[in-house]
């Protein structure tokens, strides 16, 4: 994310719609991409909307001088995890489908997306978040620890687990790298 003008937060807090919109546009693709990977494309719009509403509602809690991006990732990851905890019961069981029932897809790119999305959804939400923050959002371990409120020392071992399990799920889904 490019540097934001210093007064953008004050303007957003004051309810300035154009400042809010520029902050929204600056962060939209990151937040949306994160949500697609964490909750799936079908709920990503709703969750992204929810995250931005929370951003503007809670902006007074953001300490100036801290990194906005870290605060944003924390808020967004938290929102996604809350959502997944609630939805998991009914949403995630039907996803454990027979891998053989998967239809062949039209293009390679489409194929990659579906495989990755399916494999990610089989992963525990916390491991999924760690993996996505690393591989999709390219955060450092320290930033991941801050975003997820976990000790920095546990990020590496969680990533080990996430990567091993993800490879297993991908293999089960017929992934040939």
């Amino acid at each position, binding site marked *: 994310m490019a540097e934001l003008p210093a007064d953008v937060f004050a303007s957003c807090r004051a*309810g300035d*719609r154009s400042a*809010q*919109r520029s902050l*929204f*546009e600056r962060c*939209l*693709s990151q937040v*949306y*991409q994160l949500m*697609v*990977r964490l909750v799936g*494309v079908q709920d*990503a*719009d709703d969750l*992204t*909307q*929810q995250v*931005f*509403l*929370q951003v*503007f*509602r*809670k902006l007074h809690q953001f300490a100036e001088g801290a990194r906005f991006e870290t605060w944003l990732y924390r808020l967004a990851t*938290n*929102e996604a995890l*809350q959502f997944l*905890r*609630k939805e998991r*019961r*009914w949403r995630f069981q039907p996803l454990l489908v027979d891998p053989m029932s998967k239809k062949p897809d039209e293009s390679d*790119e489409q194929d*990659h*997306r579906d*495989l*990755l*999305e399916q494999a990610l959804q089989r992963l525990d939400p916390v491991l999924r978040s760690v*993996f996505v923050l*690393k*591989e*999709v959002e390219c955060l*450092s*371990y320290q930033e991941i620890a801050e975003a997820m409120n976990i000790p920095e020392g546990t*990020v*590496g*071992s969680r*990533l*080990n687990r996430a*990567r091993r399990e*993800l*490879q297993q799920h*991908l293999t089960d889904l017929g*992934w040939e*790298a």
Partner: protein
Amino acid sequence: MNCTVVKELLSAYFDGELGAKLHQQVQEHVEDCSVCRRELEGFRRLAQLASEATVAPPSAELWQRVESGLDQDAPPPPALRRTSLSQLAMSWNTRRWTTLAALVLIAVTVGILGYRSMSPPHEHHQFAEVFAEYLDRFKSDSRDAQAFLLSKYHNQPVTPESAIDRVGYRPAVAGGLPDGYSVVSTHVVKMPCCTCVECLCQRADGTTLAIFEHEEDEPEWFDKRPAVNVICQSKQCALFELPGTMAASWKSGKRYVTLIGAQSVGEVDKLVAWFSRTSETGNL
């Protein structure tokens, strides 16, 4: 360095998070060990897959949706304060409204209650801030919100049944909850405004709702949030919008009931009916 240690450090090595010395040692091991090398190669292919898989752009109306949510947050100017219930209700969360029937049932009168008439003493002012934060936090993590509120005031976890010793009445929740709800925890909380019984309940889908029973009407709980006054089950009931959810408060029997985290007006209506049946059968 052996494989067990290297396996533990492999992600940190791959992501360049190790110090120079450890990095060097893992590198030397990986050069010699085909098992660890294969695992590392797997990490590499995974990273490539993640970087190749693209994400289609979000819906083009997303900003408009955010903006209309923000418009709902901002207190409207006094001249515009009369809103139709259906407009307000739809804006809360269109997807929550399973049927319009629930609205038709209760949308008898709509008005803004004249809350906030007196300037509250200092203690109450602080309390309003605490309660406001509790309400703001409720939707994203109700247990965390509850822990926050309980950290501010004297409280005692109780069974619904034993609350009677502390508040001098038998709370409605002591008789059990309506079908589809279960008790997570019940506390007697001594807040500056009153001592009340707070019951955190869970729906069948795991989402939560807090039920407060209190002896006085407590408009300062909702401070500056505009109320919409509706008639539910022939009772006047104040509805409040909260981030992502809603609250409701009404008089039931001799006491007041406040719900935090209601999903819909339909749910409020259902619970108002349940509480009034409970109070008729002598629980309240």
